[in-house]
Every structure is written in C-alpha cells, then in structure tokens.
C-alpha cells in the first residue's frame, strides 16, 4: 500500500516551536545582563513570570478549552513570561507580577483563542495593566551605578527628561547618562530594556536564523531616529537627541522583540514597514508630548489594533506591473 496525498510532499524544517525557541535564545544575552546588573532578584522575577504564564495557559487550556494537545508545548507562553518580566522594574512585588501574567495570558491571549488569535501583544497588555493599576511600584527604579545596585532609587533617563522639561529646565541643564552608558546599559530602567548591546546581539541572532525579517526593527528604529532628529533640530533645548531616544525606554526591546511578535504584526513586508513607522512616530509623540515619559508600549498596542486594516492593503502581485 502506498500513501497518497496532494502536493507538496515536502515541508520546511522550521516549526512554531523552533521559531519560539529561537526567540528565547535571542533573549538570553539581555537576561544575563539583567542578572549581572540587578542580581538574582531579576532572575527570580523572570522565573516567577514564566512559571505563572505557563500555569495560567495550562489551566485555561485544560479546563476551559478542554484541549487534549496542550499549547504550552509551543513555548510561546515562556516568551510572554520573559518579555513581561523584561518590562518590569526589578523591585516590583512578585504578587503583582503574577497578576500581570494573568492579564497577559488570560485576557490578552487565551480569551481570543490562544496563540495566533490574539490582537494585542500579551506581554505589553500585562505591562500596561500593571502600569495603570500600580503606577508607583511600576515607576520605582533601582539606580544602577557601575553595574551594581547601590540601594538607592533613581529615575530612567526618559523620566529624568520628562520631569526636567516639566519643571522648566532645558536638556542641557540635566545630567543625563553618557551615550556609552546608554549603549552598554549603565542606566536605570526595567529588567531587559537597559542594555542596547545585549538586545542588538539578540536581534542579529533572530535575523541570521530568519526568525524575523528586517522590516519591523529597521522601520521602527529608523522612524524614531528621523522623527526625533527633526524635533531635535527644531528645538535642541527641549528635545533629546536621536541616539538618546534610540537607546532608552525599551526602544530596542520593543523594536526587536515586541513589535515583531508574529500574531500581532502585519503579514506583508510592505505592511510591516507601515506598522513600524507608525510605532516609531507614535513613540516619539508620546514621549515628547504625552503624560508618560515612555511611549513604546502604548505605540505598539495602538498599532496592533490597526494591523487588520494594514493587512487589507493590497501588496504587489505578479502580473500587476504591465
């Protein structure tokens, strides 16, 4: 007896689980750096976040969806857990982390039907929920000095700018971290967002393994650079320079790991570029003119909502040239 099936009789080696594992590998440099800087409390926070994400997904899958084939096997819940923890300050009480995970997995992901069906990035929904519910705890940062915690709390570079401008100072009056400090991660901030270099290493890994394409990271970062450069040139007293914008406030984390989330980004390359430009412009607008110092999360969530519309844009078909 021969097996008969329609063509193609060939499948690529890639699979959902392999892609998710690639993302996890790409997150390792940033995780190592955050443990190095913040100590084992960072690792504990990440582990709690991953464990609760897995637990919530498993419970919902088993008792609400009554699935036989558990979706936690695809590793996507681990990514949500790691990304959520990367967006939190390391001093956040662990019970808040668990609540964030419940919102991320339970509300943002599983209530839409699980992996691939969600409209909004689950980790960002969890983070924004926590930010709005517990604003004080979510904006208390351990101050990092020469890569060690000195016990005092400080503000993120973006927070310093926002506060400074609000109180009538100019950028030049503020003692902002040097570009080198920004690049290496010698600044205050959430667990995973501080080290630009570690995130870029992860991003290069994702590009090399063809897990993501260049379109979203390049268009997000490019439009942040261009737009903030325009503002900077218009009024350097009130606007930080483009490099400052690119290296702070999770711009790298958002552009490389959050905006590129498959389920919540457009399907076509052209759509991805529009999506990325939207995120970049919105981020700078929120940072400069909004109430919050940081705009990446909101910008990505707003653009997530527009993805179904972006997907309607007809892209280039063969034969449409003539």
């Amino acid at each position: 007896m021969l097996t008969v099936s329609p063509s193609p009789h060939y499948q690529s080696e890639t699979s959902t689980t392999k892609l998710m594992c690639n993302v996890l590998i790409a997150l390792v440099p940033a995780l190592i750096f955050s443990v190095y800087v913040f100590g084992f409390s960072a690792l504990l926070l990440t582990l709690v976040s991953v464990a609760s994400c897995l637990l919530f997904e498993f419970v919902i899958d088993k008792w609400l969806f009554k699935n036989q084939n558990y979706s936690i096997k695809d590793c996507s819940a681990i990514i949500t857990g790691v990304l959520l923890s990367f967006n939190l300050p390391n001093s956040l009480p662990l019970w808040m982390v668990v609540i964030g995970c419940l919102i991320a997995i339970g509300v943002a992901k599983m209530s839409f039907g699980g992996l691939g069906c969600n409209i909004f990035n689950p980790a960002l929904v969890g983070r924004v929920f926590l930010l709005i519910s517990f604003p004080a705890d979510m904006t208390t940062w351990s101050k990092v000095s020469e890569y060690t915690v000195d016990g005092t709390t400080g503000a993120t570079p973006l927070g310093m700018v926002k506060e400074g401008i609000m109180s009538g100072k100019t950028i030049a009056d503020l003692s902002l971290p040097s570009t080198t400090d920004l690049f290496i991660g010698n600044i205050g901030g959430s667990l995973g967002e501080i080290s630009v270099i570690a995130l870029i290493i992860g991003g290069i890994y994702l590009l090399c393994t063809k897990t993501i394409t260049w379109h979203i990271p390049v268009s997000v970062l490019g439009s942040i650079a261009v737009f903030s450069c325009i503002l900077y040139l218009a009024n350097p007293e009130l606007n930080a320079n483009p490099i400052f914008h690119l290296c702070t406030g999770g711009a790298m984390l958002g552009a490389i790991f959050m905006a590129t989330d498959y389920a919540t980004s457009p399907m076509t390359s052209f759509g991805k570029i529009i999506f990325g430009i939207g995120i970049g412009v919105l981020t700078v607008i929120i940072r400069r003119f909004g109430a919050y110092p940081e705009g990446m999360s909101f910008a990505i969530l707003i653009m997530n909502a527009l993805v179904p519309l972006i997907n309607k844009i007809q892209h280039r078909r063969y034969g449409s040239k003539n």
Partner: protein
Amino acid sequence: MKTFTIGGVHPKENKLSKGVAISIAPIPERVMIPLSQHVGAPANPIVAVGDIVKVGTKIGESAGFVSANVHSSVSGTIEKIDMYPDLSGNKKQMIVIKTDGNDEWEPTIDRSTTLQKDITSFTPEIIKEKIAIAGIVGMGGATFPMSVKLTPPKDVTIDYLLINGVECEPYLTADHALMLEKAEEICVGIELIKKALGVSKALVGIENNKPDAIAKMQQVATAYQGIEIVPLKVKYPQGSEKHLIQALTGREVPSRKLPASVGTIVCNVASTFAVYEAVIKNKPLIDRIVTVTGTGLTTTANVLTRIGTSFSDLLNVVGGLPEGTDKVISGGPMMGRAVRSLEIPIMKGSSGVLCMTEKEAHRKPETNCIRCGRCVDGCPMGLEPYLLYALSKKSMFAELNEHNVTDCFECGSCSFSCPAHKPLLDYIRLGKAKAIQILQNEAKKEVDKK
C-alpha cells in the same frame, strides 16, 4: 545574478542523482500508452487490437488544434485498447502493446547519433509540421502541445525564445543530465525553434546549482548566433514559465494570459532536444529521460525510458522498490503527484520517479496559525495564502475570486514554508476549482442571455 522578484522559497535540493550519466532502460515486455498525455483533447486511436506496430508508428491521431499525436514506443502487437487508471487515479483510454523483442523501428527514423548542425534545408513551415507530426509536448510537466506554442496569435510579435533549463524541483536531475550530454543537440534544437518562430534571440536560463551544465552550454553556445546562457540564482519555483520570463526578461505575464502576450515563448530543454530529434532525425516523441531517485534507494539514475514503461518496470533499473518505501511520486516533491499503484505508465511529461521513506512521506501535525506571514512572503504570485485558505475553508468562493485565487498555479511554496504545517494548498486548490467553476457558470449565463 538574475532571479524573479516576488516570493520564492529554498527547499533542500537533495539532487542525489547529480552527475549520474544517462543510462538506457531495458525495453519492457508490455507498455501502456495513454492517448491523453497532453493538455487538450485526447488523441483518437488509429490502430486496432491485433495490429502489428513498429517503434515510432503513429497509434493516436491528434484530435484538434490543442492536441498531440501519440506513437508506439516499442515494436510488437496491440494487445488491448481500454480504460486504465492514470497518475490521477482517473480512468483514461490507453493502448497496451506487447513487445516482440525485435525493437524494429520505422524506416523513416534516422537512428544514427551523428550531429547535424545544418538546418538551412528546413523552412519554418516544415519545422512546425515535423514537430506536430512527432507529437511533441512541453516536457517540463505542463505538457502543452508544442505545435500550438509555435503558432502564436497573429497580433503579437515574439522577440525572445526562452529555454528552461532551471529544474528547480528538488531531487530531479533529468534536464541537468541532458544538458551535460546533449548540449550540441539542444543548441541545434534552439536554432530550429528560433527559425520556426522567426526570432533572433534565445535565452537559456540555468540555475547556478548546475555550474557544470552552465559551463558546458556556454562553451557550446559560442558557436551559435543569438543563444545566450543566463545563470540564475537558485530559488523555487524559477522553473515556472511565468517566473522564468520575469527572471530572464523582467516582463510579467498578466493574469490568465499566455507567455506570447509579452512576446516570449518558453520551451523546456527536454522538449528542445525532442525538437532536434523530430526535425533532424524524424524521430517522434517515444522516449524521455526520467530521474529515478529517493533517499531509500542505493543507486539513483537518469534513465532514457520508453514512453509507456510502467513505474515498476522502471524501478527495476535501480533494483526495485526499496523496503520501507511509503510514497512514490511522479515528478518532484513540490509539484509531483503521489501515485497509488506502480502499474501506471511513464508519460511525455514524467520527469522523475521519487521514492519516499515512511518518515519523509507523512506530514507533520498541524498547529495554530501564528500569522508569521511566511506563506505571503513565499508566494511567487504575490497572493495571500493564509487568507485564501481561510476563505476556502468557509466556502467563500466569490471572495476567493476577488483575491485572485485563479492566479495560483499550485507550486506549494505556502504549504512548504508554513511553520504550523497547515495544509494551505490543499484548501486553496479546492477553493480554486470551485471559484473557476463559478466563473465559468457566470460566463455561460452571460452567453445564454445574449
């Protein structure tokens, strides 16, 4: 290096039979020759049971403009003319010939292997007539009758003849072997087709995973005017007519139009070789090179096989069907058809016989679509396979037409690239068939109204 611009994937090449010299398959005891080996009307049988035929005797007469003659590939006696299942499992009319062992050829056929480069004695009309008599069809798999291809509509001017030596399907090496061993004959064949069409320029597209074939063809082509060998970047499905045209000339064939509408005619290298044989040697299309391959086989082969040889007879060349074979494919793994029995014949369009082990034969389990967009990036027609799949699943056929489902030529890039292993093409194929049916019904109603 040139290639087509929209979509495309890179399947693992697995060209196991690369560099294997062409061997000649033994003549089987019995051949089954289908009367429909081409696109268009099946040929009409012109022999009766009990008739004695020679190699090259015409047994099926072309039944109209889009049709092709069929010839006996062996000498012997017509045993039966009946309906037998073909590749697709549908029953088709076939002529069964029992061979007499003498291998007696029609006297008009020149069996010598001497190369004849001089084509001045053939007028375009004679070339076309000889091609039509020989029953040549597109041997790359589409099996479009060559005589029709060489008669483009009067209102178009053809300025390029494109020769397809791409062979983008994994595993297959039949065209590669042919280019290495019959480069001169192919070039004379190109000259003949150029003359028949009245064009001065021919481009031969060969993917750069065949550097030896590119070198050989380039070396031979220097002696001919207006034959240019163009190395192409490896990308599937470059061997598709429309994509080869875009890769070589930058032109795009509009939806539901033929290559002639952009001034090009595309011929496969195997068909070009058949043209040489038909015109110079008076030999009808009675054999072709077939790649016999698979990871389970101990030896692989590029075999010159008589049309009508069954898969099981052909597999004897490599020592029979290996233990543990679960799937046998006619053609390559991307667009080939899985056969349900080995008692079906090799036809004019059969480029390969691929044996798959049990592990390779089964699909991986399906998971949730993660909306990664790999199917959209891979689609060489610029369609949105994820959307077509969903629409087809929901029987939304009008919407399928709006999203140009009829442009899909079933290359399989979407299903191949899907990390969730969704059977995208299965559903798109179903939806496409329905959508075409609806379009045809509508067209019919319009005609009825008038």
